[in-house]
């Protein structure tokens, strides 16, 4: 192997940390533009939704288990269950679904 793993580690770590830290340290004032404020307001919901589906269905051994977990998770979160409860319920649903249908 020509390349050193520690140099690889240094390169990837510096790039990742710069991406995460630079905006936080450089943008120190409140953004004034109403459009940008609205944009930043919607980003968390949109990006988490994009990352959740269809990934949740592809993460499990059978897609049905992931789909059931998603439906159950949405229902519980809608009813006001906590972060931990929703998360744990999704795991239990997948385990049970795969036990019955696998």
């Amino acid at each position: 192997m020509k390349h050193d793993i520690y140099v690889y580690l240094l390169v990837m770590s510096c790039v990742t940390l710069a991406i995460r830290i630079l905006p936080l340290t450089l943008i120190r004032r409140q953004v004034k533009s109403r459009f940008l404020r609205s944009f930043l307001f919607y980003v968390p919901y949109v990006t988490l939704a994009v990352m959740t589906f269809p990934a949740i269905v592809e993460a499990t051994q059978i897609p049905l288990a992931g789909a059931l977990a998603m439906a159950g998770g949405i229902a519980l979160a809608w009813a006001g269950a906590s972060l931990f409860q929703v998360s744990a319920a999704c795991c239990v649903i997948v385990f049970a679904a795969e036990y019955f249908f696998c």
Partner: protein
Amino acid sequence: MEKEPSALRRGVAAHRRALSDGLHDGIPIALGYLVVGFTLGIAAKNAGFTPWQGFLASFFNNASAGEYAAFTLVAEDAPYWEMALMTLVANARYLLMSCVISQKFAPDASIWHRIFVGFDLTDEIFGISAARRGTLDPYYNYGAMAVALPGWAGGTMLGVIAGNALPGAVVSALSVALYGMFLAIIIPPAKLDRVVLGSVVLSFALSFLAGRLPLLSSLSGGTRTILLTVLIAAGAAALFPIRETEDQHEA
């Protein structure tokens, strides 16, 4: 002189509460990370990493897709510039998240708090921080990081050591823990705000489509996430700009 210590004590009590909230919300994250880190460790092992190198990679990167892509490059003995470029593309979405969190900080928050919060601004910790009401207390992030970081880095190390020791059914069940958390973050605000609800539903639909359309599906998952996020959030912002006080309370 009498006011000083009690104000100080109130401040400390608030930080302590934020810290314990963070620890509490960090536990499901840490459990999910332990498992995802474990599977990542298997990829690291295949790329020739020792357990210690796997630990370092995860401790300083905290990025599943980014690390996975990096491990495949190490396995191919790719040039360093390619590693830098790949990490940049795979992790570019954190640039956007960092911008969002910059607006959650009090303007006079110290640079050190900004650096340490940025250090572990993962998808999940971003999610729970963005969902906090009002100004972000960095101690909330420190609480979550205190359990999430060891979960992630330790999980990777164990994955390098133990390989395929976990049964498939357990990995499968635990792999949805993080998605369950995302649902718990996005659904309650969607229930209260029609525009958020519409954006969430549209995000699910477009994300599903983008994985299947010819051109878009060839992009990496991270790049698709950025494209869709910018597109949908900009559309929502243009059509339904928030009222001036809204973002102080909601996201």
